[in-house]
């Protein structure tokens, strides 16, 4: 009996609602041989209630480290994490009460779907009848009614994924953490689950932090994206801003700006830059005439036609609605052009683009 009382008290300490989660210079080092390597270096971001945040970056960028730090599965080397006025970084994961969806789902293999989903409620000492009711509601939400008695091994990948989500959200956590939850699913299911996860996020009305290396996933799901590389934040912003105005060349590369041109700045007028070779572009940093710069542009923003660039068609990849045409310029630069019109190998073509789509970054 006393054990039960203590449990419900500790349960009261877990927060169900909040205004904001603040990460203040969150840093995590790992011993790498004799050296200490920062897997995560000074992550500072504030997440508000209702927000869907994506941590985006290539593998090894520190995004999963950040998620594990928030969940309490990794301790911080420096910095602090605050849930409103409560400092949570010294707390173990079981005292934080965040829901987490793991990349490989981490379903308990010896428990039925019902027991898996009800586990968090059981740990919180919720009465049996209420567990029953809330598990049923959570399974309804992920559209898995009728599978209650199955073991995880009897479910498909997509169903396992939905059990993992139901298990994380049934306790109504203030924060749901998702670590590349769709990476093990096939393409069609991935698209379906994206919409599903957004829908669940809206219906809970709390916050979701979603880790992914897939820029398309981040753009389509998140309210705000945190782009990371080498343990550091490179840019934080709305999907549209990240997509059209990457903060630096690395972010641009990661967001699909596959084409890069080396050039010298000739003239700057406000946001407009004139580069050597007669190219016009948009300044994405402090540029002065004579400076070395790199210009980046997406394949989608290039077109075959009369333009300032010209070269020979090296390769054509047919892609249904359009084709990906590789054009080799005279100076050896290879351009990828997504073009509605087809081209022939070896043909000489011109490449055109709208000047505001060519982003010019200072070098060094």
């Amino acid at each position, binding site marked *: 009996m006393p054990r039960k009382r203590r449990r419900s008290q500790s*349960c009261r300490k*877990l927060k169900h609602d909040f205004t904001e989660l603040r990460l203040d210079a969150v840093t995590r080092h790992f011993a790498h041989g004799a050296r200490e390597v920062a897997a995560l270096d000074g992550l500072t971001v504030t997440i508000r209630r209702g927000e869907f945040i994506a941590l985006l970056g290539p593998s090894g960028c520190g995004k999963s480290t950040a998620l594990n730090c928030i*969940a*309490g*599965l990794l301790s911080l080397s420096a910095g602090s994490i605050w849930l409103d006025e409560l400092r949570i970084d010294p707390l*173990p*994961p*079981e005292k*934080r*009460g*965040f*829901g*987490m969806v*793991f990349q*490989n*789902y*981490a*379903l*308990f*293999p*010896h428990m039925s779907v019902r027991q898996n989903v009800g*586990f*968090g409620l059981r*740990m*919180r000492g919720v009465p049996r009848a209420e567990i029953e009711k809330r598990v049923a509601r959570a399974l309804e939400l992920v559209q898995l009614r009728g599978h209650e008695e199955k*073991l*995880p*091994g009897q479910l498909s*990948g997509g169903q*396992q994924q939905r059990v*993992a989500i139901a*298990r*994380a959200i049934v*306790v109504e956590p203030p924060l749901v*953490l998702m670590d590349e939850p769709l990476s*093990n699913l096939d393409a069609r299911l991935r698209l379906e689950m994206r919409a599903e996860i957004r829908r669940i996020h809206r219906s809970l009305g709390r916050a979701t932090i979603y880790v992914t290396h897939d820029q398309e996933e981040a753009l389509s799901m998140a309210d705000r994206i945190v782009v990371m590389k080498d343990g550091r934040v490179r840019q934080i912003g709305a999907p549209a801003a990240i997509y059209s105005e990457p903060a630096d060349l690395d972010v641009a590369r990661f967001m699909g700006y596959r084409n890069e041109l080396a050039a010298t700045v000739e003239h700057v007028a406000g946001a407009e830059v004139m580069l050597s070779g007669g190219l016009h572009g948009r300044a994405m940093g402090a540029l002065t005439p004579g400076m070395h710069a790199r210009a980046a542009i997406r394949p989608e923003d290039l077109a075959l036609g009369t333009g300032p660039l010209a070269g020979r068609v090296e390769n054509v990849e047919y892609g249904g609605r359009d084709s990906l045409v590789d054009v080799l310029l005279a100076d050896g630069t290879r351009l990828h052009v997504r073009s509605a019109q087809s081209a022939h190998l070896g043909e000489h073509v011109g490449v055109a683009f709208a000047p505001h789509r060519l982003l010019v970054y200072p070098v060094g």
Partner: protein
Amino acid sequence: MRDRAVLLAAPAALLVAALFIYPFAYGLLLSFEPLKGDWLANYAQFFSSDRLWPTIGITLKLAIPATLINVGFALPIAYRMRTPSRSQKWLTTILVVPMTLGTVLIAEGMLTYFGPRGWLAQFLQLVHLYDGPIRLTHNYWGVLISLLISGFPFAFLLILSYVTGIDPVLARAAATLGAGPWAQFRHIYFPLLLPGLAMCFCLAFVQAFSVFPSAVLVGAPAGPTRVISIAAYEAAFELYDYSLASAVAMIMGFVQLAIVAAVLGARSLLYRGPVTGGKG
């Protein structure tokens, strides 16, 4: 192709037949051919003789506690050591040593250490912690300690391999759902380990039940530790009654089989699937 692949198992099957099935069948038949009396006379003698049938109880009284203690202590220690570390490597190395020593050397060591004038007794008397006589050899306790020393490493290493086979992300998932360290063990690790523990119990039990050298060397083979294997030995090499010895061996095997079957029967009721939580 597949049919021919089965042939690859033939040498092993032959070996098993030659080394296990043949002697077993031979012993079984021999046990029904007593020196005098009808075909069940050996068994009748075993269960009516005060020198013979109590050996079952004596052996069980040693083997079951020794197995329970070994498995019971190995489990928490192996659980604590589940993450690979330097101390894990050291401990496993140290624990392999008693397994390689063999029971005779362990008994030798125990006699100098635990004997009435052994180091332990001398030390306790030196610091006046305990002045009474210390009797840890040539009795029940001597054999039990010897079984613990020789059996614990085996139980530990086996359980360690089971524990490290469980995906640690499951415990982390449980932690994010509100399970503290104890609840993680109770609800995640323990149920997943239970089939392995049952298996470990069986193997450790069979090992302990066939105790022989230490029952003679550090036990009291005339009385309290007159285990069943001593009875078989006496029948064979002191009475030269091979038939009776075979009957004793058959009874010994039957008791082991009964306990193992009971444990494995209970095990079949448990969950025995993969111990990871989804796609790897």
